[in-house]
């Protein structure tokens, strides 16, 4: 355990635990867009910058992304100085120019007093904030079907060659993790569409309800040894079946008893 000061309050944390988690545990709201517990922190959105210093730094201080900075003994953390708020505001200002259609960005900007961007709206801008959450989650999943392509301002997230990604299994993890909901997908007539590809959804053999794609089920079967027939029936029908089975046993027991 280490002891730190966050906004003047002494707090305890596990050594190495990232500052952002500790800060949030204190109920302090530090914004972060690219952070997600399921993926390694990457520090791309810069919103979670905090100011740190130490007693022995003689007044010297620096800004660090709290999602990436491990807790250490004696750290003095400040999360909401006017300078930090100014940086966050300017970053949101930049985001607003890039992602004019994102409700989330718009809402966050408003919290910092921004109604419209001070900069030139980027003509080819979409709502992608390039936080890499999608590519990181796909990597954790073990597929890495999509990746960041090109560099700098021209960077986009895409499948290889800009084509529908061959390694995609249609699990939707990327779409769900995306903070600005920019990854389009749809389920229709037993088919899921995402990244320009279509995937067969497994229809429940009893009621026809669909949950995941066949490719995803195959992948789970192979990677995690889940028996294939587990995916044949939907959760609703499985529960009914369980009730019927258990009920049958109860009835049997009753008969035996009587």
């Amino acid at each position, binding site marked *: 355990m280490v002891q730190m000061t966050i906004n003047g309050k002494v707090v305890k944390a596990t050594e190495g635990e990232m500052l952002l988690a500790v800060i949030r545990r204190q109920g302090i709201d530090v914004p972060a867009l690219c952070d997600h517990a399921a993926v390694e922190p*990457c*520090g*791309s*959105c*810069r919103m979670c*910058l905090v100011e740190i210093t130490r007693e022995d730094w003689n007044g010297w201080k620096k*800004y*660090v*992304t709290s999602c*990436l*900075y*491990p807790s250490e003994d004696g750290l003095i953390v400040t999360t909401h100085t006017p*300078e930090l708020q*100014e*940086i966050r505001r*300017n*970053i949101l200002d*930049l*985001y607003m*120019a*890039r992602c004019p259609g994102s409700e989330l960005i718009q809402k966050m900007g408003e919290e910092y007093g921004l109604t419209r961007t*001070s*900069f*030139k709206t*980027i003509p080819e801008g979409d709502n992608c*904030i*390039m936080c*890499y959450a999608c590519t990181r989650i796909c990597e954790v999943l073990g597929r890495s079907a999509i990746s*960041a392509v*090109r*560099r*700098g*301002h*021209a*960077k986009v997230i895409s499948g290889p060659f800009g084509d529908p990604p061959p390694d995609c299994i249609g699990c939707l993890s990327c779409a769900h993790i995306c903070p600005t909901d920019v990854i389009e997908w749809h389920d229709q007539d037993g088919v899921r569409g995402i990244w320009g590809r279509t995937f067969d959804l497994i229809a429940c053999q009893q009621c026809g309800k669909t949950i995941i794609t066949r490719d995803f089920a195959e992948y789970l079967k192979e990677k995690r040894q889940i028996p294939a027939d587990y995916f044949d029936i939907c959760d609703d029908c499985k529960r009914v079946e369980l009730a019927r089975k258990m009920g049958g046993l109860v009835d049997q027991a009753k008969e035996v008893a009587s």
Partner: protein
Amino acid sequence: MRIDSIEKLEKWRKECRRTFEARKRKVIVCLGEGCLANGSEEVFNEFKKQVAEKKIADVTVESVAKTGCHGFCALGPLVIIEPDGTFYTKVGKSDVAKIVDKTLVGHELIDKLLYTDAKTGEKVADYAKIPFYARQQRISLRHCGTIDPHKITDYIAMGGYAALGKALTAMTPQQVIDEVTKSGLRGRGGAGFATGKKWATCAKVQSDIRYVICNGDEGDPGAFSDRTTMGSDPHSVLEGMIICAYAVGSHQGYIYVREEYPLAVVTLQKAIDAAREHGLLGEKILGTDLSFDIKISRGGGAFVCGESSALMRSVAGAVGEPRAKYIRSVIKGLHDRPTVLNNVETYATVPAIIERGADWFAGIGTKKSTGTKVFSLAGKIKNTGLVEVPMGITLREIIFDIGGGVPDGRKFKAVQTGGPSGGCLPESKIDLPVDFDTLTEAGSMMGSGGMVIMDDRTCMVEVARYFLSFLVSESCGKCVPCREGLYQLRELCAKVCDGEATEDDLALMERLAKTIQVGSLCGLGQSGPNPFLSTLLYFRDEYLAHIRDKKCPGGVCRKLITYSITDACTGCMACISVCPVHAITGEKKKRHVLDTNLCDRCGSCYAVCKFEAIEIS
């Protein structure tokens, strides 16, 4: 032949020296990139041919030697006749016969090819007396231009690998680190971190594997000293790395060379092979317990890979995106192992420090920036090329005394130092002593020693826009302030250039610049606004001229200038043939006419006119 002891090394050195000195008279042709670009390879081959044909008593084919870059690129191809030090400049293939006949056979000087002192107008025969060389003190560049980079024997003859021998046999690793620390050597890559301290930290981290990396990704436009060192004296880089490996306990090293330097890769690879063949790399170096090998890792053309964490990711085969350096790479670097990363010039300096001692090195330069520094002089300066001078020398001495000042009778306006991370310093700062700290205080930085000189025909706003464009195309795109911020800053800067910006825009630019500085993830972003901020600091009036008066004082920004043809026009047709939009019409020997409506103000006509008949207003 494997050299497995110091004794053998010294014996071999004697042999090498004998061969090196056997040729009393030598014709040395510079084959550095600069001279190569001007055809020095043809000159070299022609010398071989002529000397072979003419059978001169004391000059054989072997006496025609090639070397790496000599530094004085402005006057290439360079030919030096030793032992007199006769220095011929701009030697063409057709000059070779004359040199052979007159100088080699007849011991006469050829005036036309000699260097002319800009101040006195006199011809200087001995290159040591040329101000460009006379003011220099070469440590890192000590062998550049004197040895054939492809011959390890040349390097050995000049005392090469003696420092390694000394370190391995007479010093403990700790003593090596202490010596480097005491020398005060600071990393030549830009930030100027104390080299000894870095080595000491790496050596202290508990780990079975440690890496030594040489950063040869000289990405700063305007800097070319590392290219020269790698291509002209590769063994001193290797020797520095091996000494470092011994000091910190590493078995594997990498040299990361940028893709744009194919010649350096070839030369380094040859050097590594030769060193390995002679037992100076590989298992049991010089018969001691040290085993260390070096691999070359070629870059892929990405400026951001000069940043240490990006470089290490690139060495590991991944996209060169930096990571937040809260755990320093010296503790957790390549493959998460402790890693020492220094740049080419730093490693090349190390053998000299070990050989001649820390006190000698610390006695050169200033107290906090010891030793010498190599500067690349380019842009609007007479003597373009490489110079190595003691730290603390003033910009004026470098630019005017050594560099010969601004050509074509124009006025000095600014010097850009430190590449895209640095800044532009105006004439008022020209007497600043150059070292790591003073440059940073003045709003620029040392960087890798690039100095691009600008004259009064340069627009400082346009220069800022240029650097921002460079950074926008080189940003990795990982974090927002750099990816989006530099882009917007560039757009705003372009708006100023176009005369469409307001003073509010300028305030927005300053606000944004600060956010980029503080908010960016790596050094590229953090220093990205420097070219803008430094030009704004010293040339705010130029920004205001664009904004308030819609004028470009440098006469560069297209939307704010017009071109016209004056009476000085002789009707030579040069401008007509070069105008890409066919805005100039006229006949031979008659004054030409420029249609301002068609003109897109590219300045091609201005560049080609030999009669100063094109006027910018």
